């Protein structure tokens, strides 16, 4: 009997004994959702060990995959067993996707790292529906840390990284000035900054702009009350320069979470986020039902229609 057709309980047992195909299959089933995914959540729950969840985000081309690959190379030397969820967008038109993160990790990532490519699959929140479940599978079969790599160009991605224990934001020289740094919402979720491609001109300017932004957080009272200030690490991921320092910074953040008791709060936020995503998915389905059923009258203001339809959906 093929491993792919094993029932969930046997899959979980096989996965926990190290069978990679079983792990791969569990991730597929969790991604599909529905009763099987819920059953897997129940089965894996007793084995959740609290793996450190690290989110890595940044603009396309910032070097996230390369950085992630380098991390997975050095982590086993520290006795860690990393797994990676590499998230890329689905086409909004076809629902298909080209998941290319493995290309950048090729020849860099550690031999025994488990890398899974994940497509966002359309709906806002679709990402969240599959990512927390996949993190739980990795955790339950013994991977630690779990690294989630996402393109940080939208609120969904910011949410996902914000729902990690430690959020690493990757920027590059020439990405913008201090004003950009202050208006970019992405930066506010960072626990660790990485200035990648630091061998390029302008790297120190970027560092200075980030430092200035963090200084202003102090002025405006937005800084962490326990005095935690996100460190800025300079890297050249293609050469592996600065990678050790990135992990040291991630570790230091984890220790800060442990010392201040904030880890529990982070994880509670993660659960809240997952619930929110599920509700969003349900409502989205209802919206489609109502809008396709309603006759849109151009004589009536679209705003009135929108308000009426929204009332109709939420009053159910």
């Amino acid at each position, binding site marked *: 009997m*093929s491993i*792919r057709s094993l029932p969930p309980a046997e899959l979980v047992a096989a996965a926990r004994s190290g069978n*990679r*195909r079983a*792990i*791969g*299959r569990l*991730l*597929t089933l969790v*991604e*599909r*959702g*529905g*009763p*099987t995914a819920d059953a897997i959540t129940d089965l894996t729950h007793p084995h959740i060990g609290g793996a450190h969840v690290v989110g890595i985000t940044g603009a396309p081309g910032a070097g996230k995959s390369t950085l992630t690959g380098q991390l997975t190379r050095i982590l086993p030397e520290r006795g860690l067993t990393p797994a990676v969820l590499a998230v890329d967008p*689905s*086409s909004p*038109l*076809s*629902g*298909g*996707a*080209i*998941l*290319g993160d*493995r*290309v950048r990790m*090729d020849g860099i990532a550690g031999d025994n790292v*488990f*890398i*899974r*490519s994940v*497509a966002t*699959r359309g709906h806002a929140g679709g990402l969240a529906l599959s990512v927390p479940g996949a993190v739980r599978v990795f955790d339950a079969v013994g991977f630690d840390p779990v690294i989630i790599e996402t393109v940080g160009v939208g609120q969904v991605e910011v949410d996902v990284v914000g729902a990690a224990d430690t959020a690493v934001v990757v920027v590059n020289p020439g990405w913008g000035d201090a004003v950009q740094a202050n208006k970019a919402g992405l930066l506010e979720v960072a626990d660790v900054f990485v200035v990648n491609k630091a061998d390029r001109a302008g790297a120190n300017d970027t560092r200075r702009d980030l430092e200035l932004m963090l200084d202003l957080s102090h002025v405006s009272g937005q800084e962490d009350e326990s005095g935690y200030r996100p460190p800025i690490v300079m890297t050249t991921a293609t050469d592996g320069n600065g990678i050790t320092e990135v992990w040291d910074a991630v570790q230091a953040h984890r220790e800060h979470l442990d010392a201040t008791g904030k880890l529990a709060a982070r994880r509670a936020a993660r659960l809240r986020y997952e619930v929110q995503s599920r509700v969003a*998915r*349900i409502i989205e*389905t209802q919206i489609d039902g109502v809008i396709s059923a309603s006759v849109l009258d151009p004589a009536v203001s679209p705003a009135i229609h929108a308000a009426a339809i929204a009332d109709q959906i939420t009053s159910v």
Partner: protein
Amino acid sequence: MTEEHKIRVVLAKLGLDGHDRGIKVVARILRDAGIEVIYLGLRQTTESIVSAAEQEDADAIGLSMHNAGHLVLAPAMMAALDEADLQIPLIIGGIVPDVDVAVLKEAGVAAILGPGAPAEEVVSAVRAAVAAAVT
């Protein structure tokens, strides 16, 4: 709220073959047909492809070959899949002379797509190979 069963295909170039124009076109064709493509890129080995297929729970593997190595590489890939006990259909695209098609089919390759194969043919070959494997 069960998701539809999305097809996931691993695409790669096996061995020393830098001609990746075709595989990029195929990746795009499959994406635009609603398929999830896990793109491994150039200079892969049978081991790296097996490893990726396991981790990605791939429904099919597509290899692009333009270096006249298909009579060696395709059977080697089939053997690696057998050894790993992976029953995943293998599809070969690229330059395969007509006389070699039967040889590759005999070796267990599910489909062979030549140059200029229309998008519909590429997509239906993948869907058919996946459907045949699932039963």
